[in-house]
């Protein structure tokens, strides 16, 4: 009885791991595409390019900030460094906050992968909502800071 039970458990464990591996292999093409795209972005989009995009009007800049953060991706450390530089160059805190927030919460490059795993509707809705929330939270954060400091 024990040997039977053990062999069932082992089979179930093996099947659990093979399911996990299979699910990964089906995702490999999209994953590879996305990593290649990320490589392109890191090479082509420089710091000067980014700083030259901001206009000076806080409202427009916040929108631009969220949009830019949505497109750019990668290690958030990069977004903090870019954000710091933008602040030094006089870009408004609203825009910089939206930028760093959209960087981590919205991912245009990640959309295909997210759609494959979690459904197109969910991926589009979540990213769209996160884009808007980046602006809302940026406003809320800066206004709160203004009120408490």
């Amino acid at each position, binding site marked *: 009885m024990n040997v039977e039970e053990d062999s069932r458990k082992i089979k*179930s*464990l093996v*099947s*659990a*791991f093979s*399911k*996990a*591996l299979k*699910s*990964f292999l089906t*995702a490999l*093409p*999209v*994953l*590879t*595409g*996305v*990593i*290649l*795209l*990320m*490589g*392109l972005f*890191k*090479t*082509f989009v420089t710091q000067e390019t980014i700083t030259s995009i901001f206009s000076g009007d806080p409202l427009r800049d916040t929108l631009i900030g969220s949009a830019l953060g949505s497109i750019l991706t990668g290690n*958030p*450390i990069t977004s*903090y*460094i870019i*954000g*710091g530089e933008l*602040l030094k160059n006089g870009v408004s805190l609203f825009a910089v*906050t939206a930028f760093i*927030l959209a960087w*981590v*919460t919205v*991912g245009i490059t*990640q959309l*295909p*992968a*997210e759609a*494959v*795993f*979690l459904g197109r*509707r*969910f991926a589009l*809705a*979540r990213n769209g*909502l*996160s884009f808007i*929330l980046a602006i*809302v*939270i940026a406003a*809320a*954060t800066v206004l*709160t*800071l203004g009120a*408490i*400091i």
Partner: protein
Amino acid sequence: MYFLVFVILLYIFIFWLSPEKVLSSIETSIQIFIQVVPVIIAVIFLMGISNYFLKPKTVMKYLGKESGTKGWLLAISFGILSHGSIYVWYPLLKELKEHGMRIGLIAAFLYNRAVKIPLLPLMIFYFGVPFVAVLTLYIIIASFVEGKILEKVG
């Protein structure tokens, strides 16, 4: 599949315009891939474990429709604690969703990845403690709001 083909065609097109940049991009992509591999292995392992241990009933109880506040707290905490590239977490989330995890919690998990504890010192260096504290609080609140909205809509 079409997406990968598109990216490869893009590379070929850009190679025609600027070969060195493309080579540099490929090099960067390989670096990214190497960084990602250990996390991928960890996640495949985690998925295997969760496939084995997490029967639908368990997932339903902690992260399903009736999970309530505990479910949100779990999703928020794990979102904050999760590390590595987001791509490697998608398959695990898909499994959890198929086992019954609410999409609101999945959204909250993903959103809370915006809070990265190891990077907080760097953020404070650039933006100061009050900014980081307020922003982090709002991120957590927003993750809950976003989750709720997505559940109503989707």
